[in-house]
């Protein structure tokens, strides 16, 4: 693409322009899938509750997300009294920006990646960890006790589950010998048996549950907890400011699912060696993982706050440590090939 643009433009400008186009090629599909993830979620949860879900706007209700977006666009943004105006508007931006920035290092196919950096895995972890600022600042700037409680809960929860999540990633990089996401996928070449979800099965489960907690989704949605603290940190937000939180939550959800796929389910690799690889497989696997997110929400009641903390610190962190030591030990034995 850069070559093509260089025919018409100044070469320096062409590179920047090519990057801009690539960014749009990532951000716009992400936004569209976020919109349709909400539709998918409402339909699936509806089905699990013997209802049919939204089916009025457009064919099978397919225009529902667009109608929702338009509604939110035209709604008024209300500033709570004595809130901190600057931080109140900064918070939604701070939650959406890291959610989108992390997509820069996600490989969608062989060398189909915006920024092929060496420490890709760390970068993604750093980006997901700073997403908590949006929540904290939103809760504090709203000048509302419910919002503040929600943000405190969310901060404690995200900080504790990040540790367990980081340890599971340590297991993956021990197996793959690389922090580069593309190389991690390439190390899982050769069909379904080579995927890391088998040698790292406990870590896979723990990663997945931590990912649910990290994105504040049910059953770990104490930060929102509508039956306890109204809507948690975004209780004072309306209109587009609320929509940004919503977008960030779902973009994060897709992000952690795509990470789960890349690290444990072979990324864009096909499960059987006779079927060609491609981005198609990535999308199918991500949809499959996202279905689990929604399935959890339809099934489990909310965890109590102290139980969440207990699970994170007293169960997940010891379990991941044990499994990492186990892998490290196995790599020194004759069975090392099963762990690479």
């Amino acid at each position, binding site marked *: 693409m850069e070559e093509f643009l260089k025919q018409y433009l100044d070469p320096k400008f062409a590179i920047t322009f090519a990057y801009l186009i690539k960014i749009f090629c990532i951000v716009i599909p992400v936004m569209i899938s976020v919109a349709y993830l909400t539709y998918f979620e409402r339909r699936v949860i509806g089905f699990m509750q013997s209802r049919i879900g939204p089916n009025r706007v457009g064919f099978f209700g397919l225009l529902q997300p667009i109608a929702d977006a338009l509604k939110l666009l035209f709604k008024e943004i209300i500033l709570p009294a004595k809130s901190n105006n600057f*931080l109140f508007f900064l918070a939604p931006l701070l939650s959406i920006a890291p959610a989108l920035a992390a997509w820069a290092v996600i490989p969608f196919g062989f060398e189909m990646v915006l920024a092929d*950096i*060496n*420490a890709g895995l*760390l*970068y993604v*972890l*750093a980006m997901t*960890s*700073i997403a*908590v*600022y949006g929540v*904290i*600042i939103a809760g*504090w700037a709203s000048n509302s006790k419910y919002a*503040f409680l929600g943000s*405190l809960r969310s*901060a*404690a929860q*995200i*900080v504790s589950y*990040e540790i367990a999540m980081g340890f599971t990633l340590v297991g993956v990089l021990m197996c793959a010998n690389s*922090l580069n996401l593309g190389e991690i996928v390439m190390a899982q070449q050769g069909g379904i048996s080579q995927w890391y979800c088998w040698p790292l099965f406990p870590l896979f489960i723990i990663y997945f549950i931590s990912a649910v907690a990290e994105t504040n989704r049910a059953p770990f949605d104490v930060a929102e907890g509508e039956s306890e603290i109204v809507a948690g940190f975004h209780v004072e937000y309306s209109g587009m400011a609320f929509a940004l939180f919503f977008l960030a939550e779902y973009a994060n959800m897709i992000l952690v699912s795509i990470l789960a796929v890349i690290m444990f389910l072979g990324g864009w690799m096909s499960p059987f060696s006779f079927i060609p690889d491609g981005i198609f497989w990535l999308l199918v696997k991500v949809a499959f993982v996202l279905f689990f997110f929604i399935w959890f929400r339809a099934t489990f009641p909310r965890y109590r706050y102290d139980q969440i903390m207990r699970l994170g610190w007293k169960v997940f962190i010891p379990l991941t440590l044990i499994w990492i030591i186990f892998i490290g030990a196995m790599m020194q034995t004759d069975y090392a090939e099963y762990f690479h």
Partner: protein
Amino acid sequence: MMQFSDYIFYFFSSILILASLKVITANNPVYSALSLVLAFFSAAGIWLLLHAEFLAIALVLVYVGAVMVLFLFVVMMLDINLESLKRGFWSYFPFAILIAGVFIVEIYLVVSDKFFLESQIETFGTSKSNTHSIGNILYTDYLLPFQISAVILLVAIISAIALTMSGHKSHKAIDPKDQIKVKRNDRIRIVKMKSEKR
């Protein structure tokens, strides 16, 4: 002629300086903490310019992602009285100037030293991944200091837990085991006393 990366450097460093000034001048402690976050972030940006990607991301991950979150947590919940904090400002001022002067001299000594010559920065080759080379050095040349620091951290963690957990019970629930062991004499005390006259 300035390169594009130079512009980025000046951009980040000016934000870094402004944010650090804001940390110590801001009236609201929450603003101070948030400015510190911004300062860390711009420092990470400058490190990225120097190809120290591992350090930059580790800074964001550890300080921005975890330490400052807990910091904010505490600062938001504390009700800090700013008046009492500012009271002794001018009486401490000469002492502060003295310390600042010492600092500036020390920094000058370090920066002007040959330790930070440009040729030596370049020796950490960009061919290998940053993480790889750091790991290599940590686990070969500096293994003992690394392990010792790990042990010190472990001791710190355990002592923190011991300090908070010592003394009182963490919960108020009654143990059924203790309840069924209770004898009559544990609960009842019979007092003999003479009946009083009306």
